[in-house]
């Protein structure tokens, strides 16, 4: 691994190639809010709270620092007005999905969020951060919970056959869920056994 230098908030920092921008910033004592990033899990860039601004060839853009690789000469800004407004939007969306979560509320105050900006009538509390899914797969190797569906229909679901065997003795993911919804999903959000006789629609 070779050493590289990058600039964070105008300050030169030395990093190892292969580190993420978030890791480098943390080591340099720069605070970046995160939600879906746990040290023991492979970063997945799910929540976008760790958004920072980078400058490449004179062009600025917002990236998720937990998945963005530190590069030689990269310029990173962690608290510009653009970053703040990006994080504010992310927080407003997350808070619409999961109202009343302590960690989000705290960040919300910091970024002047209007917690009622978006009204999600079926706020189901799961922000799809994937911590439970990744923890079960990466740390426990059990794969009892997974993502199902796509887009607005995406959810986390337990595989009943595996959950019945493994979860009672583990349930370690419960305390990792940032919104606290996971324990109440257990037993309810299950992958259905879907080999039912097809179709209920009768020909008129």
């Amino acid at each position, binding site marked *: 691994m070779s050493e590289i230098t990058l600039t964070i908030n105008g300050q030169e920092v030395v990093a190892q190639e292969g580190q993420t921008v978030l890791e480098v910033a943390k080591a340099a004592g720069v605070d970046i809010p995160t939600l879906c990033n746990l040290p023991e899990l492979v970063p997945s860039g799910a929540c976008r709270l760790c958004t920072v601004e980078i400058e490449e060839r004179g062009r600025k853009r917002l990236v998720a620092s937990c998945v963005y690789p530190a590069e030689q000469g990269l310029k990173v800004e962690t608290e510009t007005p653009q970053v703040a407004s990006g994080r504010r939007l992310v927080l407003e969306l997350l808070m619409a999905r999961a109202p009343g979560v302590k960690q989000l509320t705290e960040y919300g105050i910091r970024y002047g969020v209007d917690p009622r900006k978006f009204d999600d009538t079926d706020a189901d509390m799961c922000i799809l951060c994937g911590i439970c899914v990744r923890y079960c797969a990466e740390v426990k190797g059990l794969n009892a919970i997974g993502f199902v569906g*796509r887009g607005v229909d995406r959810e986390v679901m337990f*595989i009943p056959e595996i959950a019945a065997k493994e979860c009672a003795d583990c349930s370690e993911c419960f305390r990792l869920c940032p919104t606290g919804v996971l324990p109440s999903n257990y037993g309810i959000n299950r992958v259905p056994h879907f080999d039912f006789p097809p179709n209920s629609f009768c020909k008129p």
Partner: protein
Amino acid sequence: MSEQTTVDMAELLGRYGGDKSQLIQVLLEIQRRKRWLSAEDLEAVSTSLGIPYTQVYHVATFYKAFSLVPKGKHSISVCLGTACQVRNAPRLLDRIVDIFGVKPGDTSQDMQFSLDTVNCLGCCALGPVMMMDGQYYSKPTNEELERLASAE
């Protein structure tokens, strides 16, 4: 009830030799041959490729190409894209629902027809368009639809 195609899963999976990168191809082939993926199929794929069931299930529910319920022998797609919409695609859809006896997203009781709506079939000038078993039909009349509905 029409016959359900059965697939020799051992033979099918054997051909892919446990290659994890072929997950989507395997699922597509099962889908193509028996027109849906059962829980047992997904389990067999998971075991054979050594991919956790959670991930197989994730992929199977992610792509619209896969169905987790049995599909009819013939598949009908009705375009509700913008161009077809303004040429009264909803009316075409209603006629299809009546004539084929199947609702969008559903399969007729006799397992002959599955009906889905799509957002553009790529031939807007022909709209309103429907597709059945890979064939396009532009502004089909009731007679045409009835003929198709009596297809075996």
